[in-house]
């Protein structure tokens, strides 16, 4: 996790905590199904970016600031819902017509799109928001090539695109792996061990080599690293539990299944399991996923 310097004010610290909390969303990559033969025509993840705008003219400074703030506020309002997130993306889209080179705005636009790529009701919309979000993430990376948030949302959105349109699956695997590795190697953290979690879920669900890169052992390493980064983050426990059920089956070690059940209860299902602040909607979804996982692994 990013360290705070003593010089930082309490306000900065609070703002940063909120900042990271907001990035936790959607990081559970439910991608697979996508590799091997499931890709239907092997398309590349789109690489387009926003057109470069000229300098922000003084009369537009206020408009730009208002649009960005609204986009962010609409994302942060709890509990999140599709209608508000669509409005959030719309504000960011408008802001891009005025200025398209502010890194923070770009990754925040990608984040709103990522939410819709995960939770929009219609599959066609999820595909479109994946592509729209990738444009934000790609542009963010153009501005700041090693930007942690840009890389993270690029990975998440590539996964969402592959999940919702299998023809992007093969390329998505490569893109996710590359982006997550860059974040991990930089030592930065994002979204509560997000890079480890996303990469870990990819390794858990992808087919084995030589078809793809799947490996239960490597998945376990990554998901344990995510837990080490953020031991209380419920999504990390949800992902770790899925890995443990697979491990229990593969290695014939039922104690791992018992451990998975225990962590699902403790961090997601028990009455004392706490909803992380700013993640009311997502926490309910994770609880549903936890119940499904338990039902599949009775």
């Amino acid at each position, binding site marked *: 996790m990013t360290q705070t310097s003593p010089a930082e004010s309490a306000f900065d610290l609070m703002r940063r905590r909120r900042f990271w909390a907001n990035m936790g969303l959607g990081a559970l990559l439910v991608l697979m*199904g996508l590799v091997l*033969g*499931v890709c*239907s025509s*092997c398309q590349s993840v789109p690489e387009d970016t926003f057109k470069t705008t000229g300098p922000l003219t003084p009369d537009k400074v206020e408009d730009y600031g208002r649009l960005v703030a609204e986009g962010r506020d609409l994302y942060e309002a709890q509990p999140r819902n599709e209608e508000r997130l669509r409005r959030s993306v719309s504000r960011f889209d408008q802001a891009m017509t005025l200025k398209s080179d502010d890194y923070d705005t770009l990754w925040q636009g990608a984040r709103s799109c990522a939410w819709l790529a995960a939770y929009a009701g219609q599959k066609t919309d999820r595909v479109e928001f994946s592509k729209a979000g990738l444009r934000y993430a790609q542009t963010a990376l153009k501005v700041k090539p090693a930007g942690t948030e840009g890389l993270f949302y690029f990975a998440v959105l590539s996964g969402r695109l592959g999940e919702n349109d299998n023809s992007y699956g093969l390329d998505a695997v490569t893109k996710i792996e590359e982006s997550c590795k860059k974040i991990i190697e930089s030592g930065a953290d994002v979204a509560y061990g997000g890079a480890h979690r996303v990469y870990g879920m990819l390794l858990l669900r992808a*087919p084995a080599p*030589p*078809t793809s890169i*799947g490996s239960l052992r490597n998945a376990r390493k990554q998901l344990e690293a995510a837990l080490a980064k953020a031991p209380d983050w419920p999504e990390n426990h949800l992902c770790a539990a899925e890995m443990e059920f697979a491990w229990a089956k593969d290695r014939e070690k039922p104690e791992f299944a018992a451990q998975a059940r225990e962590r699902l209860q403790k961090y997601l299902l028990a009455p004392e399991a706490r909803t992380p602040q700013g993640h009311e909607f997502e926490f309910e979804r994770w609880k549903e996923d936890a119940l499904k996982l338990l039902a599949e692994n009775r």
Partner: protein
Amino acid sequence: MRVFYSLVIAAVFLLGVGVSQAQEAKTPELGLSVFKLGEVNANDKQAGEAIDKLAKHLSDQVKDAKFVRRGVRSKPDDTLTLLKDDKNPTALAIVSPGFYFKHKDSLKLTALAEAQRGGFNGEQYTLVGKVKAEKYPEGKKVATTLDADPDWLDKVVLPRPQGAKPVQWVHYDNLADAGYLFLDEPENAPDFILLDRMSLKVFQGDADLKGLVAGLSSEVLPQDLVVEVDGRLGKHRDATIKVLAELDQTPEGKKLGELLQTATFPAPDEKRLQAAAARYK
């Protein structure tokens, strides 16, 4: 007047049905089945869409032919059931060479082409382990995904010298994970892992696995074969062979080849096929 319209509508309807039936009669379905020995993801749910794509490509390229997927299987018994299903007949199948040799006569299989998976001309298996396998590893545990066809393994891939204690084939869905056991849990690791050419390449490029040592290798063997079942391709046989051999000649075919990890399906290497068949007996 109303009666007239009714007759017209009825005539159009009948005509439509007639045309449709005529088209169906003209283009009977040619079933396409795929068997990938030991590949855990070789099933209709995970690989069906890709095989549908191959069926569509063949339908588009072979005049008046309509290929449809019958099924994707990873186990020999399931594949046998699929290929014996007369209600949903398979005309064209991709099968392992062992399956082809075993059921060639009973299912009336004719080898038309050979998959060049990973761009390799022929398959070659290599034993890797902590130590170099210099000779037949008598009585050792060898990890493989191919254990559902022990005849193929024992007679062709790693022929057992007379009097030697047979190797113990141990099934792993994921050979990379079997390789990591040498590092993480040596007490639970197999003695060796049997790798195909593509997997060996993966091992050689993996930071943790490249330290394992490659030893004894098999002869160069046939890869998976494209076979015709019971002459069911009929007049479409030659065109089908041509389309498969020229898969990498069009942009669409290239994309499909990437998806299948097989750029092209040239004619089988007869010499190689006969040599393997002789051992398999």
